[in-house]
């Protein structure tokens, strides 16, 4: 497994939340994931994400996975 610093994966949860005027707690309630885990995801400390979590986030935020996650190889 490559080290997490070198993965180049960015999560844009804070931007999407701000655009929709939603708090992390509200999102946690809708998605069914704890605030602690969502905070881990938002701050880029997550090492992996379940398809079920990704699908629930996309549903709650009305977006596509590509809006939530991006990859920068550099």
């Amino acid at each position, binding site marked *: *497994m490559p080290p*997490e610093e070198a993965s180049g994966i960015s999560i844009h949860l804070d931007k999407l939340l701000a655009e929709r005027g939603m708090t992390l707690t509200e999102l946690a309630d809708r998605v069914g*994931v704890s605030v602690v*885990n*969502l905070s*881990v*995801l938002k701050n880029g*400390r*997550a*090492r*992996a*994400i*379940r398809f079920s*979590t990704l699908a629930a986030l996309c549903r709650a935020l009305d977006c596509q996975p590509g809006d939530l996650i991006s990859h920068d190889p550099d």
Partner: protein
Amino acid sequence: MSSPGRPRIHWTRADSVLLQGTLFLGLLLLSLSFLATLLWILAVVPAGAMGWMNEITVHHTSEVARAVPDVTLLADDVGVRGTDTLVLVFEDPGAPERLLLALPVLLQQVLGLVVVGLVLRMLQSLSSGDPFVPANVRRVYAVAFAVLLGSLLLPVVESVCDIALWQDRVPVDEVALLAFDLGLGSGPLTGFLVGLLLVSLAEVFRRGARMREDVEGLV
């Protein structure tokens, strides 16, 4: 899915406390017996004060007649024969003899202390909530290797010490040089099998810890 009739195992806090208490007691007793053995080697304690410590058991060769115990039999359909062992009792052993007599016991106590100490540390990590950590993998492997090492090394050390003790005291051609009990009830084979079992469990534990590490940070 669990069937209603299947018994469930619940590890409670009381179980942890009970096991930790037992292990602490075992550690204390082992430490005391280790200290007593050291004192016995240093001749602070009289030779006969610690029971079997000043005795070694040697085995006759098949050529030597076995003494039949003097016992009255109440039936004709059984016979009696003597055993092939004799016990040498060292009444007043010197410093080198005390060391040779106590060395196998000392080794056993050291290995026992290592194993009990490691199991106790693992149990303490269980109470902290996360036992599947690399430190515990090392501990399980250390326990397994201590048992394997003990099962192989102890009989060898015991035999070498015994030979050094009896060689000038018993005719060499009347005593078996080495004698191992290969039954499953006791002896090196049992220790070796337990060691192999523990190595297998250690590997399962190592893989479990690696999987645990993989899911850490999973959202």
